[in-house]
C-alpha cells in the first residue's frame, strides 16, 4: 500500500517485529539458568518493496522466524562425551565404596588379623603345653573368620545396591526414550505446520544428553528433523511404538542381562548386555558383574587357600591328647565314605589349587592307600600305612588316612575346585585347645607335649609360596591379599582420575556449547534496549502519520 497509509503500515510492521524481538530477548533472559536451553534469535526480513515513483521504497519489516542458536557439532560432541562421563562417574562412586572397605588396609583388618593368627602359632610353639595360648589361637582363628565374613558381606551388600542402581538406570532409560519419541512426533507435526518447535528441540536435546549419560546410545538426525536413537544396535522407537529395555537377573551366573524389545518386535527380547559398554548403566554393570565378582572370587580364593593350607598342615600334626587328622578350619572339601564299617577315617584338603581334580576315589586297608581319579579310575597315588596312619598327596589333595581296624574302606573326595562362598563360610572347626596340633610326632599325656615342630610349619605357611587357583605363579598369602588390595586400589584410582578428566572435558565442551547457545544477560539487555528504541521509533512514525493525516483532514477548502 502506498501513500501516507503505507507509511503507517511500515510503523506498524516495526512495532510488531520489535515486539516479537522483545519477547524473544525476554524469553532468553528468563531462561538464562534453564538447563539445556539454547538462546533464540528473531530473524527480521524487510518487506518486498513496491515498485513506483520515485523508486522502490521498502514496505517495513517482518519477524520471519525465531531461530535457535546452536552448533550441532558441539552439541553432538557434548552429548556423546556424556556416555564416557556417565561410565566413569558411576564407576567412581561404586568402586570408591569398595575401596573404602580397605581403609588403612596396610595395618588394619584382614592383614592385621592374618599376621596375628599366624604369629600366634609361634606363641603356641614357644609354650606348647599352655592351654591359654592355644585357646587364644582358636579365638584369633575365629576373628580371622569374622574378617572374611565381613568383607564377603560388604561385597554382597555392594552387589545388591548396584543391582538396584542397574534396575533404576533401566527404568530411567525407558522413561526418557518414551518422552523423546513423543517429542519427535510433536516436532515433526510443528515442522509440518511451518513452525519452529524450538522448545521441543531443546527438551529433546536435553533428554538425549541424559540418555547418553545413562547408556551408550547411538543417535542421528534425519533430514526432516526427526531423531533416530539406537540402543544396543536396535532402533529405540519408531513412529508407531517405543521399544522397552529390561534388566533381567540371571541367578545361575549371578549377573544382569540387559534385554531390549525393539518397537514392533514380536519375538523374544534381544540380549544387548555385551553392547552396553558406556554410560552409568555400563559402569554399574562393569563394576557389579566384572570387577566386584573378580574381587569376591579373589577373597574366596584367599580364604580357600588359607583353610586348605592350614588344614593340610594341621591334620599332619598331633594335639595334646594324641589326636591327629584334625582340621583347624571347617574343610572346603567333601569326604564321603562309600564302603567300610567306619573304624578308619580320611581327612582331605587341597594342597595344590592349581592342579586339583574335581573328584578322586580313595581305597584303604591295613597295609596301604590307593588313590584313583574318579573320571577314569586311573590310579594317581598310593601310600603305605605306618603306625596306623598314611599321608598321601595326589590329584591336588593332601590326604591323611587312618587305617581301618579290619577290612577295607573306600571314600570319595570332591569339591577341591569349589571356591565360591568360602570366605562367607570360613570358620574354625569345633575343636578344643588340646586338639591344636602343634606337635609333629605322636603325643600322649605326659609324653612329647613339648614337640612344637608342626606349629613352626604352620607359622611358616604365612611366608611360603603357595599355588592359588587361577594363578600361574605361586605367591604367599600376604602377596595374594596385597595383589587384591592393589587391584581394587588401581581400579578405584583409575575411575577417580578418569572421572576427574571427563568432568573437565565435559565442562570444556559445555562451555563451548554455551559460548554459542548460552544466554548472555548483558547481550540480551543491550538487545532489549535496541528493540525498545526501535519499537518507540515505530510508534513515533505512526504518531507522525496520524499528525499528517490530521493536517490533511483539517486543510482549508480552497475551492
Amino acid at each position, binding site marked *: 500500500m502506498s501513500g501516507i497509509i503505507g507509511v503507517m503500515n511500515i510503523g506498524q510492521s516495526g512495532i510488531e517485529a520489535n515486539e516479537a524481538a522483545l519477547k524473544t530477548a525476554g524469553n532468553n533472559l528468563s531462561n538464562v539458568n534453564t538447563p539445556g536451553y539454547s538462546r533464540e534469535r528473531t530473524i527480521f526480513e524487510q518487506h518486498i518493496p513496491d515498485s513506483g515513483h520515485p523508486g522502490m521504497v521498502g514496505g517495513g519489516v517482518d519477524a520471519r522466524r525465531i531461530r535457535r542458536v546452536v552448533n550441532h557439532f558441539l552439541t553432538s560432541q557434548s552429548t556423546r562425551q556424556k556416555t564416557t562421563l556417565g561410565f566413569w562417574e558411576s564407576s567412581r562412586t561404586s568402586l570408591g565404596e569398595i575401596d573404602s572397605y580397605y581403609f*588403612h588396609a596396610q595395618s588394619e583388618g584382614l592383614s592385621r588379623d592374618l599376621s596375628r593368627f599366624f604369629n600366634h602359632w*609361634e606363641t603356641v*610353639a614357644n609354650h606348647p603345653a599352655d592351654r591359654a595360648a592355644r585357646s587364644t589361637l582358636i579365638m584369633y582363628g575365629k576373628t580371622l573368620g569374622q574378617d572374611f565374613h565381613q568383607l564377603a558381606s560388604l561385597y554382597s551388600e555392594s552387589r545388591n545396591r548396584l543391582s538396584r542402581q542397574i534396575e533404576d538406570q533401566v527404568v530411567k532409560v525407558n522413561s526418557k526414550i518414551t518422552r523423546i519419541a513423543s517429542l519427535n512426533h510433536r516436532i515433526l507435526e510443528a515442522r509440518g505446520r511451518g513452525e519452529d518447535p524450538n522448545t521441543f528441540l531443546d527438551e529433546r536435546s536435553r533428554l538425549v544428553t541424559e540418555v547418553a549419560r545413562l547408556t551408550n546410545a547411538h543417535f542421528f538426525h534425519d533430514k526432516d528433523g526427526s531423531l533416530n536413537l539406537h540402543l544396543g544396535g536396535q532402533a529405540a522407537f519408531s513412529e508407531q511404538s517405543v521399544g522397552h529395555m529390561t534388566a533381567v537377573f540371571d541367578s545361575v551366573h549371578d549377573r544382569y542381562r540387559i534385554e531390549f524389545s525393539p518397537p514392533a518386535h514380536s519375538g523374544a527380547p534381544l540380549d544387548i548386555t555385551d553392547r552396553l559398554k558406556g554410560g552409568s548403566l555400563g559402569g554399574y554393570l562393569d563394576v557389579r558383574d566384572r570387577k566386584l565378582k573378580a574381587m569376591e572370587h579373589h577373597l574366596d580364593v584367599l580364604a580357600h587357600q588359607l583353610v586348605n593350607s592350614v588344614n593340610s598342615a594341621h591334620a599332619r600334626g598331633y594335639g595334646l591328647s594324641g589326636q591327629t587328622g584334625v582340621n583347624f578350619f571347617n574343610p572346603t572339601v567333601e569326604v564321603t565314605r562309600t564302603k567300610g564299617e567306619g573304624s578308619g577315617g580320611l581327612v582331605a584338603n587341597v594342597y595344590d589349587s592349581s592342579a586339583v581334580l574335581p573328584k578322586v576315589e580313595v581305597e584303604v586297608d591295613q597295609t596301604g592307600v590307593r588313590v584313583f581319579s574318579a573320571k577314569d579310575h586311573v590310579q594317581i597315588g598310593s601310600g603305605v600305612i605306618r603306625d596306623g596312619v598314611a599321608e598321601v598327596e595326589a590329584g591336588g589333595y593332601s590326604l591323611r588316612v587312618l587305617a581301618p581296624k579290619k577290612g577295607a574302606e573306600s571314600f570319595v573326595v570332591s569339591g577341591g575346585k569349589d571356591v565360591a562362598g568360602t570366605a562367607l563360610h570360613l570358620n574354625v572347626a569345633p575343636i578344643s585347645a588340646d586338639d591344636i596340633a602343634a606337635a609333629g610326632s605322636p603325643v600322649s599325656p605326659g609324653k612329647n607335649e*613339648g614337640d612344637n615342630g608342626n606349629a613352626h610349619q604352620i607359622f611358616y605357611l604365612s611366608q611360603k609360596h603357595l599355588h592359588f587357583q587361577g594363578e600361574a605363579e605361586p605367591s604367599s598369602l600376604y602377596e595374594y591379599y596385597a595383589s587384591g588390595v592393589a587391584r581394587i586400589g588401581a581400579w578405584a584410582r583409575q575411575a577417580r582420575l578418569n572421572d576427574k578428566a571427563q568432568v573437565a572435558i565435559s565442562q570444556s565442551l559445555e562451555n563451548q556449547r*554455551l*559460548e554459542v547457545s548460552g544466554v548472555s544477560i548483558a547481550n540480551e539487555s543491550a538487545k532489549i534496549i535496541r528493540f525498545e528504541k526501535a519499537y518507540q521509533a515505530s510508534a513515533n512514525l505512526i504518531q507522525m502519520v496520524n499528525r499528517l493525516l490530521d493536517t490533511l483532514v483539517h486543510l482549508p477548502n480552497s475551492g
Partner: protein
Amino acid sequence: MIRVTGLMTDRSLMANHDRATENLYEVERQVSSGQKADTPADGPETMSEALRINRTLAVTHQIIQNAREGANRISLMESILSQIDNVMIRAKGLAIRQANGTMDAQDRRISAEEAERLLEQTVALANTRGGEQYLFGGTNISLPPFSLSDKDTEPYVVSYRGNHKNSTIQQGFTPTFRQAGLLKTTLIGDEVLGDSSKSPEANRAFPAMRRFILALKSNNESGIHRAIGELDTAVRAVTERSAILGTYERALRGTISRLEKYQTDLKVLRSQTEDVDIPKAASRMALSQNLLEVAAKSSRNILQNTRNVLFN
C-alpha cells in the same frame, strides 16, 4: 572474540572453587591422618608396599620374640647347669677329703649323708621349670625329667623320664636347622646328667654320685678314689654343656640385635612409604588455602562486576 555468558562464568567459577576445595581437602586429609594413603585408591603402590613391609615387620617382631624367649630359656638352663656344676664340685671336694686314709667308716657315713643332700639338690635343680615347662626332659615337658627312686628299694638311683627329642624356637625366617632357622631350647637330660637306672656305670653326674655315695656308705676307699675322677669327668660334661649353651645364648643375643636393627630399618622404610612429609604437606596446605581464598575472591569480584555492569 569469545562470547562469555553468565552460565559459563558461573560454571567456571564453581569448577575452580571445587578444584581448589578438593586439593585442600586432600592435603588436609593427609596432614590429619599423617598417612599418604588412607584407602588403596589414594596410592595402590604405597598400600601394596606398606602391606609387604608390615608383614615382614610382623614376622620379624615374632622372630625377635621367639629369640628373646629362647635366650631367656637357654640362659636359665645355663644358670641351672652352672649351679649343678657347683654342687658337683662340692661333691668332688667331699670325695677328695674322704679319700684320705685318715678317714674312718664313721666319717664316711656322715659324709655320705652330705653327698645324699647334694644328690637331692642336683635332682631338684635338674627338675627346675622354665615357665610352665621342664627344661631337661626333651619334649616331655609336663613331667619332672628326673626321679629319685625309693631309698630302700633302689638306693640313690636317679631315672630319666624325658625323651630324646627337642623343643625348638624359630629364630630365623625358615623352620629348618639347615638355614639356622630353628634352635633347640630343651636339653636331653640323660645326655648331660646321666641315668643311674639305665646306665649305672656312665661317667655322668647321677651315676657318678650314686657310686660315690655307695662307696662312702661301704667305706670303700678305692671306690672313693675312683669317684674323684668320675665326678671330675661328670663336672666337665656339665661345664661343657653349659659353655655350649653360653655360645647359643650369645648367638641368640646377636640375632636379636641384628633383627632389631633390621626392624628399625623396616620401620624407617615403612615411614618413608606410608607417612606424609609433614613440612611439605603443611606448605602444600598453605598454598591450597591461598588458592582457595584467591578463587573465592575472584569469584566475588567477577560477580560484583557483572552486577555493576548490569544494574548500574
